[in-house]
């Protein structure tokens, strides 16, 4: 089980007073303190861990966020920033003595500038709403995490979120131009802007992916891109995971930049096909979905080249989408995979990343480890960049099954690190992988990172107890707060 620090009773004792003072900053109904309403904030997408916060505050403006942060700092109250609460890593899990600062009311599009291809938004806006705002004019926002209907840009910035299409367009950090950030002392600071590459230290890169620990981003300037004329996928089936993995590397090496390159293994294929009836072959071990973009002629040319590159790997199924209906069908199974698995069992979705050349071996060892723990694991993932998402199926109501699932998860992430990969490709560390950080970094490396947090948040009030192992952060935080 993942531990959280012992809440500070003295803070909790002042709860009513703090609530009253927060109500002087935002309208009364935007401070939540009834137990039944706090329950909605007790967890995020990592719902095995739950802890209602002391209070929730939902500001409308940057100035209100700044005032809330200033108040909390003066009162010594930890702040848990929260976008939409879709983190799969427990990035917005509260502590009992904390105020959750929710961005859900801050959803405005502030400016769209097509000539310079930028959009300025409040960070509570959902990822999909950003694309929605510019789509009628032929543009889109590239990072597309699968939670994009719900997840907030603020959370995307905190976790440096990716998505299926980042193979071509990059992840959040590659598409973020500027932020307005409320610092731990309540000061409002601008980083970057509606232009590329400011000189000086690259604060924007440091802020993106810092899991809400360096400040609270309230507004962001994002890059928008012209939408492709069209996109069509192609489906390949293979007899072994190894050969499918080799085909992935061959496609990448050939310079055939697909926009998406998704991999499904046998357990995932079976479950998805039974659920979505996408027409996937059931006699293969692995499926690849390769999608390319462009005009019809460009798409045809690229798919023909991809087919030729894959041919030597003797795919047993080759299906090329000829129109939108066929495209939707090919994607139907992939898109239904998580839901279909959710119907069968509870599951943990992992997020390791490995070099492409290690994929076959990692998949083989994943199956062996699953067998050892007597649990089922399905693999559905972004193969083009080696970003694995093993889904561990288990029984949440059975403590033994939960424990085993968590142990298997940790083993699989250790395996990724052993194979020269990393613990998390796009979900973030949060609380979930916090204690595993020492498998990837040594103590000196983590202390250097903690020293960065010290610069931004000297008393560790913003999203504490995340990212760094408690064995390192707890004594450090005590020292910092004492100072």
């Amino acid at each position, binding site marked *: 089980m993942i531990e959280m620090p012992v809440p500070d009773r003295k803070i909790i004792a002042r709860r009513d007073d703090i609530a009253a003072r927060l109500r002087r900053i935002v309208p009364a109904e935007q401070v939540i303190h009834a137990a039944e309403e706090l329950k909605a904030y007790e967890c995020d997408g990592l719902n095995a861990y739950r802890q209602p916060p002391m209070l929730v505050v939902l500001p409308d403006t940057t100035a209100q966020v700044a005032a809330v942060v200033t108040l909390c700092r003066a009162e010594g109250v930890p702040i848990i920033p929260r976008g939409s609460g879709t983190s799969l890593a427990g990035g917005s899990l509260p502590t009992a003595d904390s105020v959750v600062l929710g961005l859900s009311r801050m959803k405005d599009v502030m400016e769209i*500038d097509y*000539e*310079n*291809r930028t959009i300025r938004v409040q960070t509570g806006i959902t990822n999909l709403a950003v694309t929605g705002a510019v789509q009628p004019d032929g543009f889109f926002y590239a990072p597309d995490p699968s939670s994009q209907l719900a997840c907030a840009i603020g959370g995307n910035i905190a*976790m*440096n979120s990716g998505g299926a299409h980042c193979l071509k367009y990059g*992840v959040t*950090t*590659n598409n973020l131009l500027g932020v307005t950030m409320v*610092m731990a002392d309540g*000061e409002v*600071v601008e980083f970057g802007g*509606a232009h*590329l*590459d*400011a*000189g*000086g*230290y*690259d*604060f924007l890169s*440091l802020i*993106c992916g810092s899991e809400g620990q360096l400040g609270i981003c309230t507004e962001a300037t994002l890059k928008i*891109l*012209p*939408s492709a004329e069209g996109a069509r996928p192609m489906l390949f089936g293979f007899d072994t995971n190894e050969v499918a993995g080799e085909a992935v*590397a*061959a496609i*990448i*090496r050939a*310079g055939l930049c697909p926009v998406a390159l998704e991999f499904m293994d046998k357990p995932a294929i079976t479950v998805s096909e039974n659920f979505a009836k996408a027409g996937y072959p059931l006699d293969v071990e692995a499926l690849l979905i390769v999608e390319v*973009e*462009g*005009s019809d*002629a*460009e798409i045809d*040319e*690229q798919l023909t*080249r991809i087919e030729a590159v894959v041919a030597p790997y003797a795919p047993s199924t080759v299906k090329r989408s000829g129109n939108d209906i066929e495209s939707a069908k090919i994607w139907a199974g992939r898109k239904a995979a998580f839901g279909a698995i959710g119907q069968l069992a509870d599951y943990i979705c992992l997020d390791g*990343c490995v*070099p492409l*050349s290690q994929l076959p071996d990692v998949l083989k060892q994943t199956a062996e480890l699953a067998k050892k723990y007597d649990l089922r694991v399905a693999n559905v993932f972004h193969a*083009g960049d*080696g*970003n694995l998402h093993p889904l561990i199926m288990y029984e949440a109501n059975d403590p033994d099954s939960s424990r085993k699932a968590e142990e298997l998860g940790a083993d699989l992430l250790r395996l990724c690190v052993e194979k*020269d*990969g*990393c613990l*998390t*490709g796009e979900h973030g*560390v949060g609380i979930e*992988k916090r204690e595993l950080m020492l498998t*990837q970094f*040594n103590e000196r490396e983590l202390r*250097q*990172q903690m*020293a*960065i947090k010290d*610069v931004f948040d000297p008393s560790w009030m913003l999203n504490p107890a995340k*990212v760094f192992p408690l064995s390192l952060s707890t004594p450090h935080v005590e020292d910092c707060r004492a100072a």
Partner: protein
Amino acid sequence: MTDAPDTEEGVARIVRDAMAAAAPLEIRGGGTRMGLGRPVQAARTLSLAALDSTVLYEPGELTLVAQAGMTLKAVEALLDSENQQLTFEPPDHRALLGTGGEPTLGGAISVAASGPRRLRMGAARDALLGMRYVNGQGETLRAGGRVMKNVTGYDVPKLLCGAYGTLGIVTEIGLKVMPKSEIVQTVAIAGLPDGKAIAALAAALAMPCDVSAAAHLPETVSRELGFAHSATLLRVEGFETQATYRIERLTEALAPFGPVERIDSDPWPAIRDAMMFAGDDRAVWRISMKATDAPLLVADLRERIGAEAFYDWGGGLVWLACEEGRDASEGAIRQTLAGFDGHATLMRASDAVRAAVSVFQPESAPVARLSSGLKNAFDPAGILNPGRMRA
């Protein structure tokens, strides 16, 4: 005195000694970019030149890991053998700065050298997968890794990219690389004034044609590259039918601006390296700003200080030359830029001028506090390239 250790531990030992002696170090790769930033006052130089090996190259993973002292020439030759290239098209600053030697990968990353392809494929920092570095306490550290996606901990590699060796000494770099395109074709519209040219580039960049570079050379500058009139340039890449189709679409869409002609020469290395400003004694600035604001700034500075300019990154990057004088017209440039949103960096001027002015955009008070806080967090004794970025 110059040390050129051939191991990372050797680098660390020199740093620890320097820290104990409170003796600052000047960090050097190939020495070709020593004129960037502010002059460093240090009795000792630490050269990375002997750390010049390839650690790993996996073409099928688009991944290269190399030591910081590996020359860009060697890196590019290695990538070329697999028909691949760097994503960020790093400029070669030798002609502009009048320096010799061979540019290194570590140098390019440490000054965040990004060329025309930055527009489409990202900056130097966007290509970074990870690095090894030595901080100011002589600790050897790893940040990031070698995989394509990685959000494990803070993104320290990107912070060190563009930190001019003031936070740590980069010893090893992991990069995402890219395949070379089958067809690379530049097209041009002749004779447009700046404002119209930037509008034409914006129109092109609003189309899904994956334009990989977009520049405008006003007439005085374009002549240096042999054009008769101002040249508004777009680089299109792809497979053959793809590139042909994209050029057709662009030609059609840009018709209101003028005829779009294919050109045979490759102007991009000269644009990348600002060759049009090489070989004279003017000060040179690089200004990053909104493309649509750029012609307004340039018009103003032409009038006020007789500046000469050209535009890269669709207009979002202005290269500007002006009389050096005592302060490279810093006051006029920063004052004009203050009316817009952007950052100006002095790229070329004498040591005396660069020591006297803010080479980088002055920071707001809270950002300046963070900068000195970070410097202190990585290099508490202040021995790594002191003064290179700020006085």
